[in-house]
């Protein structure tokens, strides 16, 4: 959001990142530059290494080679919770909510860094504690309003329908006040109408919070209408970079992935 960062340097820059699993070259010399406010798409067939890239950015994996810069700061090998605190929020391909907790609490947990009170404050319910907790709740409520779940705050996250769970995951990631949001297949399992909804929703999020988005997506129509740029991967290798229109016309991409269906 409105942090004091130089908006001319790329929000995310990856330089020659490499990762192996056993004998499999999961990502091979991957580089990308994402400028402030862009929506960047990451596309490619299953097993192309897209989620692995997310896991490298968020510190779940440590790359064997290469560098990852976030707002100009080197975050290669930083542990996941630090990466999140620095301002990278993410969602998961297979939704990972705190299923047995209410919707509101899911978001409040993510806003944890705003809970700047000590144990004694919590124990004695001091004014400071009450004030901070109230602010947390208001912030969470605000985010839930944006994603349209404000009337479901007391329901358990695990009991929400699929589409709402995806939105809740985004709201939760937004509670970190991130500069960069990583969306892992947000339109998975949605029909055309729902994915069109999602396109508008993601754009709205970007505009409301003035953030940068890197998303993995299979639906080509979602990518075309949403992304400013995209990178196409196949077997860990980058085979094309450019605007959706450019990428769609790339013969290599058509051969590897689109197969002439688009």
């Amino acid at each position, binding site marked *: 959001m409105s942090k004091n960062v130089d908006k001319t340097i790329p929000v995310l820059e990856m330089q020659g990142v490499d990762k192996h*699993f056993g004998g499999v070259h999961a990502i091979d010399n991957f580089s990308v530059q994402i400028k402030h406010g862009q929506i960047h798409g990451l596309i490619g067939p299953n097993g192309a290494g897209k*989620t692995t890239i*997310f*896991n490298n950015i*968020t510190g*779940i*994996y440590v790359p064997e080679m290469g560098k990852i810069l976030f707002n100009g700061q080197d975050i290669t090998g930083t542990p996941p919770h630090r990466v999140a605190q620095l301002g990278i929020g993410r969602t*998961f391909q297979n939704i990972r909510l705190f299923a047995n907790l209410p919707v509101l609490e899911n978001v409040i947990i993510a806003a944890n860094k705003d809970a700047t009170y000590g144990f004694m404050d919590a124990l004695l319910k001091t004014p400071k504690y009450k004030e901070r907790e109230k602010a947390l709740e208001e912030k969470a409520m605000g985010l839930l309003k944006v994603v349209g779940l404000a009337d479901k705050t007391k329901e358990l996250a695990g009991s929400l329908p699929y589409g709402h769970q995806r939105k809740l995951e985004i709201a939760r990631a937004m509670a970190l006040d991130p500069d960069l949001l990583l969306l892992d297949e947000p339109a998975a399992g949605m029909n055309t109408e729902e994915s069109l909804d999602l396109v508008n929703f993601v754009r709205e999020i970007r505009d409301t919070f003035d953030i940068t988005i890197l998303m993995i997506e299979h639906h080509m129509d979602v990518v075309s209408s949403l992304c400013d740029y995209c990178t196409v991967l196949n077997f860990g290798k980058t085979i094309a970079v450019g605007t959706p229109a450019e990428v769609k016309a790339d013969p290599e991409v058509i051969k590897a992935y689109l197969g002439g269906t688009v």
Partner: protein
Amino acid sequence: MFFQQLITGISVGGIYALLATGYSLIYSLLDFSNWSHGEFAMVGAYIAIVFSTMLPFPFLVAAMIGVAGGALVSWLTEKVVYRRIRSTGGPNMFLMIGAMGLSSVFQQAANLIFTGQYRSYPFKLPVSTIKIAGAYIGVLDLISLIITAIILIFLMYIINKTQFGLNVRGIACNQWGAKILGVKVDSCISKVFILAGCLAGVAGILYGAKYNVWPTMGNIGLKAFISSVLGGLGSVPGAILGAVLLGIIETLVSAYVSSSLRDFFSFALLIVILLVKPSGLLGVDVQDKA
């Protein structure tokens, strides 16, 4: 003297290995520590006691019935309890809590039926020794060592060379994938529990013959747990290695340091090994997939 202790250690380790391999197999399939595994050894040992001392059966027959009993009880726990817990889809911790409850049920039931009295099998083997290379080796230790070795070799054969073994390894690797390929997962799990129960039964009878039979002897299941962790959870060769190591260390510490510090040393060793190699000696470090 040292040689003598070493043989005893390996023989005790062998008994642990019988338990640890079964335990490790179950862990590899279900990702859960079967806390009640040691109780199958206790059940087997008691059944053999009943048939050899209270009923007029020759010891060998009684022992076989005991082994079958261990297998039966192991199979029943899977069929009745664990399958039900798995079907609810809760975390694996629930399986372990269930196993802990079962363990206490078995121990208490044995205590009520047989009282806390120490019982022994009707033969004199434990005290007889033979002299090999200048050291007195317990005949029982030798017999136990030979039986264990034969069974473990047979077990490795089953796992590595048979279709059943292949299925088990397949499920351990990827349960869902194995199911897709037509492996009958539930029946395979049942068979593993039967196999593990048999191994535990043998271990229980050998242990009972060496020491005695009492209601809480199932706590040797704990040694199986330690052995498997030492060797790497879910790895059968690791379990054998861990068990033999543990047996030797326990015997040597008892002989040369102090028997009251025996467990202290084994746990200290365990923690040190885990610090150096967090997944055990032969374990594979698996990264969580996000």
